[in-house]
């Protein structure tokens, strides 16, 4: 078993698990992540025949099914593709794969159940530590690092005030992320900073944003719209009060939620908020001189082109 409290070093080639959101509402995140990888000389190998991770709902109905859905992807990466790092840019996918890893490592009943499921489906059994699951933020932070980012900047993000919104599933619950909270160089679950570090290295001014992991209503965003709109509105207003022009995101669900409820708050509550939403991969891509179209900025609901022109980034 690998040391679960430290990330592996060689991240130049990783198994890429986009998840279903990146093929739909989060397509711009998919596009910008792939484009960024190409620019940075990193190789993403998409997992063959990947399946849904179980998203937010399956685990509450049947956690074993959710775990199996997640480990099937990890097993393909390891046993079929020979890769031992899986990179998931979506917080939901990342969270579910980490949770499955945690359960496989710590629960005998989970191991037994997953072994039976693997036998039934003919899939190689997944064992604890077969792969390491990382987020896109881990990947850029460790494979490239701040110094190299600064060296590659063609258009500094200077003048852009950014509030970083990490959402909830990137850090909670803490026990499924053993590599976090390990001191210098590791990510913090209470005050995450990897996105701050990367965007600051590209020249951005990072504002002190107190709601960076606050709940946005999550899975209730469609069923109980009003609650989600109020939670998101408070996040948007807090970012505005911090002086942010932009809210940077690293999850397709967070990103869509912020975008949709910003529009909804304006339409139903008549409250307009100014910050625009951009994926951190889009912001880094702009700093590296990649065109907005190649980064899928036109696919965002949030209209950021005016601001980007004003700041000389396009």
């Amino acid at each position, binding site marked *: 078993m690998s040391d679960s409290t430290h990330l592996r070093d060689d991240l130049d080639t990783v198994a890429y698990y986009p998840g279903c959101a990146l093929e739909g509402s989060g397509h711009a995140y998919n596009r910008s992540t792939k484009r960024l990888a190409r620019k940075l000389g990193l190789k993403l190998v998409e997992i063959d025949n990947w399946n849904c991770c179980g998203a*937010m*709902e399956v*685990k*509450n109905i049947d*956690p074993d099914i*959710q775990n199996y859905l997640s480990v099937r992807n990890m097993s393909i990466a390891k046993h079929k593709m020979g890769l031992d790092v899986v990179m998931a840019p979506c917080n*939901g996918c990342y*969270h579910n794969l980490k*949770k499955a890893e*945690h*359960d496989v490592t710590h629960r005998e009943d989970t191991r037994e159940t997953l072994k039976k499921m693997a036998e039934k489906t003919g899939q190689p059994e997944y064992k604890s530590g077969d792969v390491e699951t990382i987020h896109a933020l881990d990947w850029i932070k460790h494979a490239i690092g701040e110094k190299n980012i600064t060296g590659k900047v063609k258009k500094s993000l200077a003048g852009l005030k950014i509030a970083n919104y990490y959402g*909830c*599933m990137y*850090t*909670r*619950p803490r*026990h*499924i992320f053993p590599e976090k909270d390990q001191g210098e160089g590791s990510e913090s679950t*209470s005050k995450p900073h990897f996105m701050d570090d990367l965007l600051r290295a590209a020249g951005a001014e990072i504002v*002190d944003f*107190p*709601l960076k*992991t*606050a*709940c946005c*209503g*999550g*899975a*209730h965003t469609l069923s*109980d719209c009003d*609650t989600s709109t*109020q*939670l998101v509105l*408070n*996040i948007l*207003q*807090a970012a505005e*009060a*911090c002086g942010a022009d932009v809210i940077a995101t690293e999850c397709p669900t967070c990103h869509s939620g912020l975008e949709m409820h910003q529009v909804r708050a304006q339409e139903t509550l008549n409250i307009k908020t100014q910050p625009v939403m951009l994926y951190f991969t889009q912001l880094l891509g702009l700093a590296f001189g990649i065109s907005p179209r190649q980064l899928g900025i036109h696919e965002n609901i949030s209209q950021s082109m005016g601001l980007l022109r004003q700041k000389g980034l396009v």
Partner: protein
Amino acid sequence: MTSFSDIEQTIALARERPQEFSDPADQLMQAGELILENWLTAHDLEPTDEKREGFRLLALHRQGARHETSFHACRETCRELIYQLNLYQVNKDPQQIVMAAMVAMHLLLFIRGKMEIQELGEFCCNSRSATT
């Protein structure tokens, strides 16, 4: 019990006109405690007067979080509120009161939301299966 709308007004006032309070930080800490007291009272629990890590807010949160995994989210919110108010005590920067008020408002929206929709927060970061 203090109604959520009264607490909301206090938070809004602390944010917009902090000079109307002799100690706006204290008002916001009290607002946080009142929010959690409402949750506990609604669940037939006597709100504790104990402190945890020096703060009653954290003791109240812990009391409410028993058997309630969806309280992970407001644990972070409670700690952030304390952090912002601690910063204010050090530098007396009014912007810290604005930030603390936004955090207190988030706590209110989340708890009030949970009292209206019991499952709020249970399908995302607080997967029950990860902790059972």
